């Protein structure tokens, strides 16, 4: 779309394919995190455990079953998303540029409630946040594979600094993702008119 062209209210902001991928990803990520917390509790790395009420699976075997089922959904869905993003130019259009200066300024504006929301265009803070989320998921998957297969994929485990280091990388990738989710859900609910388009694809009509 050429710059300055007015958007009609029935323009599609988020294509159907991307909306499907987004909600599958949301489901898979939540399953992975909640079952992951139950797995963590079986052998806590740090001096705390996750409250059992916030975990999925009931016991270690159940949590592992959820984790190793949802990992396929997460991985294949992410692969589809990355292929789509690269092949259609979606990543280039939506996520670039990422210069630190403007990104920092836009982040400050967003937290001050002054961010400019142009439908169909992300401000610098959003671009940085979404790239951060995607990289966190990729890091969680890579470190997860290193823990799952420290013999068959030992090169990957070595890249993570060994098995015990890979467990910590996996934990902090989860932490980064939870950090993103808290902000993302906060803004999605707090900023007017941004949640509905992620479901219907269309901007909310000004009525």
């Amino acid at each position, binding site marked *: 779309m050429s710059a300055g062209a007015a958007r009609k209210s029935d323009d599609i902001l988020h294509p159907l394919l991307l909306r499907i991928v987004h909600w599958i990803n949301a489901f898979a990520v939540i399953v992975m995190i909640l079952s992951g917390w139950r*797995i*963590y509790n*079986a*052998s806590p*790395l740090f001096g705390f455990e996750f409250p059992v009420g916030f975990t999925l699976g009931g016991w*270690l*075997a*159940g949590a*592992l*079953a*959820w984790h*190793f*089922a949802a990992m*396929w959904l997460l991985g294949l869905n992410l692969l589809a998303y990355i292929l789509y993003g690269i092949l259609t130019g979606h990543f280039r259009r939506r996520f670039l540029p990422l210069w630190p200066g403007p990104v920092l300024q836009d982040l400050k504006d967003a937290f001050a409630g002054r961010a400019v929301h142009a439908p169909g265009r992300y401000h610098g803070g959003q671009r940085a946040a979404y790239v951060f989320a995607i990289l966190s998921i990729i890091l969680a998957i890579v470190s997860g594979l290193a*823990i799952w*297969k*420290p*013999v*068959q994929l*030992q090169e990957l485990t070595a890249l993570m600094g060994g*098995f*015990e280091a890979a*467990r910590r990388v996996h934990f902090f990738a989860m932490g980064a993702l939870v950090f993103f989710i808290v902000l993302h859900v906060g803004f999605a609910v707090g900023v007017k008119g941004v949640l509905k388009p992620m479901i219907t694809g269309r901007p909310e009509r000004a009525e």
Partner: protein
Amino acid sequence: MKRPKISLSDFRPQIERVERRLFLKRGLSLGALTMLSGCTLKDDDAVDRLLFAMSRFNDRAQAALFDPNKLAPVYEEAEVTTPFPFNAFYEEKLAPVIDAENYRLRLSGLIDNNAPWTLRELRALPQATQITRHVCVEGWSAIGKWGGVPFRTFLERVGADMTARYVGFRCADNYSTSIDMPSALHPQTLLALDFPGHAGETKYGFPVKIRIPTKLGFKNPKHVTEIFVTNDNPGGYWEDKGYNWFSGS
């Protein structure tokens, strides 16, 4: 005063309407419930079945990923974890103590020569040692040193059918597990006779443990008393409770 006569037949059309409506309503809610729960009226079961199917899919995925020639990383003596963590489905003090002289390793299933073995006879076979990482399904790991007979050598010696699919293990502590034949034939899979810890310590699996560095810890049975070869998946203590059967590393 004339009492108004009430006859049921006067109200029949209304009653039929109400009945029809109730029937539809009940039908709808039952239909909705069935759709939600995958036709069983118990949605826990549908989820469990899906997770079970995915676990069997993961068995096949892991078998495909398994490279029979890929060796587990080995470590230096100085890297061995001391004391080596004890882990079982019972407390440490309940670990079985087995008399070395009377011990016999029994064999059954698809094995040509299924005569039982004494410890002395097992010691007379070619021996190997390894220092590898034991990874527990709980997440923790520890480096240990094991010595014993390469399991492939043992299976060849007793004439096991190496085209069979599974090797099963029964243990003195009533534990059991089973592995796929490719993992049994892996060059680092060991019929271990020497264990972590100081001499005389028996809780780590004396007199026979199967050490498989390409599998999670619970697939490494301790205090083994019987080995059998079969084409029917024998499952195992934890596997039957819901842990993934292949559980490769």
